């Protein structure tokens, strides 16, 4: 399977994400971060936040828990279903995100490159996602590099 270069630059169907306190607490707990700004609304507000603060890698949950229309799933870009490697992840934070926000995320495949290794071919697909909040403000950009490996036929 090859990544679909014909999809480069095409925005996929937007998906909707509701930011919730429960998922913020859950992710903070799973990464071992007990800072009360991610767990306790009162303490977060005393510290100056409007509500629970958003952990820096919380947007990873948007990929999996946001509503996924059929044509926004990675398979349609020719990404591997199983066995794909996560090469890179980069967040650009443009504005605060809080529980109660309703985000719209639009994914694009922006680049595909290929490298020949000794054991096979490696494809590097770069995805960009831009998230806009319910006020129409861009709040976050995410760049993800996925690596797909195709082994050489056994000789």
């Amino acid at each position, binding site marked *: 399977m090859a990544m679909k270069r014909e999809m480069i630059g095409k925005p996929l169907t937007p998906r909707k994400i509701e930011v919730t306190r429960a*998922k913020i607490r*859950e*992710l903070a*707990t*799973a*990464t*071992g*971060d007990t*800072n009360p*700004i991610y767990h306790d609304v009162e303490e977060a507000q005393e*510290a*100056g*936040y409007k509500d629970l*603060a*958003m*952990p*820096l*890698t919380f947007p*990873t*949950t948007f*990929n*999996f*828990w946001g509503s996924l229309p059929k044509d926004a799933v990675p398979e349609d870009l020719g990404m591997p279903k*199983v*066995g794909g*490697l*996560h*090469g*890179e*992840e*980069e*967040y*650009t*934070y*443009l*504005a*605060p995100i809080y529980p109660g926000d309703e985000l719209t995320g639009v994914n694009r495949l922006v680049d595909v490159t290929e490298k020949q290794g000794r054991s096979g071919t490696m494809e590097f697909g770069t995805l960009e996602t831009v998230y806009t909040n319910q006020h129409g*403000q861009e*709040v976050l950009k995410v*760049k993800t590099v996925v690596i797909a490996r195709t082994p050489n036929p056994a000789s």
Partner: protein
Amino acid sequence: MSTDFKAESIPARVFFEDVEVGQELPPLTNPVITHAQLVRYAGASGDFNPIHTDVEAGKNFGLGGTIAHGMLIMGFLGHFISDYLGGPTPVRKFGVRFLSMTRPGETIVCSGVITKKYEQDGQNFIEASIAAKNTEGDTKASGSFTAVLPGKA
């Protein structure tokens, strides 16, 4: 690009004047990774790829067992940056490359060093390089972050 954060009134932990290029950030040693933690992270993130949660699936895929989600390792680094800055708000950019696989039983230590300090558009920026390594010194992920800091004046 950061004007949208100006409405926030969160007291700073780190001030621009306190930061020098070459300064090391306080390291964060995470508890040893357990299989149960990978299951918990799968639930929290929503990434239920069986190579992270199912030992048999990991073996069948030639990995010899389960491996940690790369994003768990980046999550450790996010925790580390948040501890240094007192929260996530000053961060404008945070990126990593994943360099090697992590297995249950490994302990991940996050470290970082300030690489740049500059003013731009009336704001004070710092940049740091960061890494997550096991206790043998194998690098699992490395990258950088950029943050905006207030001055003391």
